[in-house]
């Protein structure tokens, strides 16, 4: 049985595209990261209320934004993969998941580290932190389902169903967790609103958000290429076994 080439046509084109983008996104990441860190740690003044701890926000908030936007990107590419049977879309969702999970985990850790000086405890059942925790479970579920199937094309479809159902539920979860938080609002805990976004804080925040996005794109390109080549490798090995079977 010959290697089934028609399915690699657009991945090859896709990879030529990403190879072209890669140096740019790498450069942008380094640039944004350097300037972001400079502004976050050195240039911006300490906050009148929270003092230096506000600097944690420059790492916490971008991570939280990325965690959510990566998940929605996965849901969109899963839908594209499902509707137009686009093989690369499924793989890109699979490639993005670990990065999204890392951002989500970072948001949780930095959130806890920010919570300690603010409220005296590492974990406070604050609405956003709780939603981030649930999002982390959704990431784990997504990655687990890829491992559960040995047939990759089946795994892609199952994962697509899961991430679409997950994405539909995220606003519902966000709404109910926010609402649940106000219901059990112990009087003493200040909300996570933090300082109103003052310009000296906005620039490092946006720079860091840009740096995280560029970093994600860079990691994404590496991982998607690895997924596509891994798929090709798996098929070539399969055909080799099959051809041996015929000769043997």
């Amino acid at each position, binding site marked *: 049985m010959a290697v089934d080439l028609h399915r690699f046509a657009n991945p090859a084109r896709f990879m030529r595209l990403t190879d072209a983008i890669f140096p740019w996104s790498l450069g942008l990441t380094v640039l944004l990261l350097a300037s972001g860190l400079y502004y976050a740690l050195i240039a911006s003044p300490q906050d009148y209320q929270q003092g230096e701890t506000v600097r944690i926000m420059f790492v916490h908030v971008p991570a939280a934004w990325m965690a959510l936007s990566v998940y929605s990107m996965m849901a969109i590419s899963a839908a594209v993969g499902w509707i137009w049977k686009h093989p690369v879309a499924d793989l890109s969702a699979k490639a993005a998941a670990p990065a999204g999970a890392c951002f989500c985990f970072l948001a949780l850790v930095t959130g806890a580290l920010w919570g300690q000086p603010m409220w005296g405890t590492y974990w406070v059942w604050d609405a956003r932190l709780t939603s981030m925790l649930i999002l982390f*479970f959704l990431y784990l*579920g997504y990655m*687990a389902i890829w491992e559960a199937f040995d047939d990759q094309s089946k795994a892609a479809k*199952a994962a697509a169903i899961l991430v679409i159902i997950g994405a*539909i539920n995220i606003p*519902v979860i966000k709404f109910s967790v926010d609402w649940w938080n106000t219901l059990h609002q112990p009087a003493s805990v200040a909300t996570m609103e933090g300082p109103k976004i003052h310009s000296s804080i906005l620039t490092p925040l946006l720079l860091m958000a840009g740096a995280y996005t560029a970093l994600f794109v860079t990691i994404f390109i590496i991982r998607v290429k690895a997924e596509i080549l891994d798929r090709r490798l798996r098929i070539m090995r399969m055909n080799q076994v099959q051809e041996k079977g015929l000769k043997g």
Partner: protein
Amino acid sequence: MSAFFRIFSRDVRLAVRQGSALTMTLSFFVIAVTLFPLGVGPELSILARIGPGVLWVGALLACMLTLDRIFQADYEDGSLDQLMVGTLPVELMVLAKILAHWLTAVVPLIIITPVLAITFNMPLDSLGVMALSLLLGSPVLSLIGSVGAALTVGMRRGGVLLSLLVLPLYIPVLIFGVAAVEAAIALLPAGSHLLLLAAFSAGSLVICPIASAAALRLAVE
């Protein structure tokens, strides 16, 4: 439509004939719930405080244990292939099975919850709202659960994955279910919470059969 009713009645008859599965689920629910007073202490005021939450979490976990029964047995003996080859659209076939699962696995949980609520020293007039909140919210448990069950049917250790996939999606129902009961205990109006629960059920009634059917087509391939 008779095919829809056929599947529903066959599944109910099967569940009744294999009554042991039902008693196991109920006993798990009772045992899991009675562990809490042993862990937390017999202090009645505390138990009354945590009662709604414990009962809802217990019902939710007990329901989750029964989810793989929706499709697994049919997958193993080949009935699933035959069901997918019938003239009834797969989505409706899935809905019939979900309905049967809800009636035979989840409703019994709802029936015995008030009895357990008494052991948690919950006020008697709140038992009605407890049962009502379970009644309105539990279809979501079966519906979303069926998507997880369809995704993990035929898997060797599907049970663990099933809970990881399904539990995060149960959280909104848990939050508003408990909120409704706590509102009732505090003699506040619980109407809005119950309406939201009903809305969750209606919403998943639309989405989940389609997702489950897609997942089943995948599993049968």
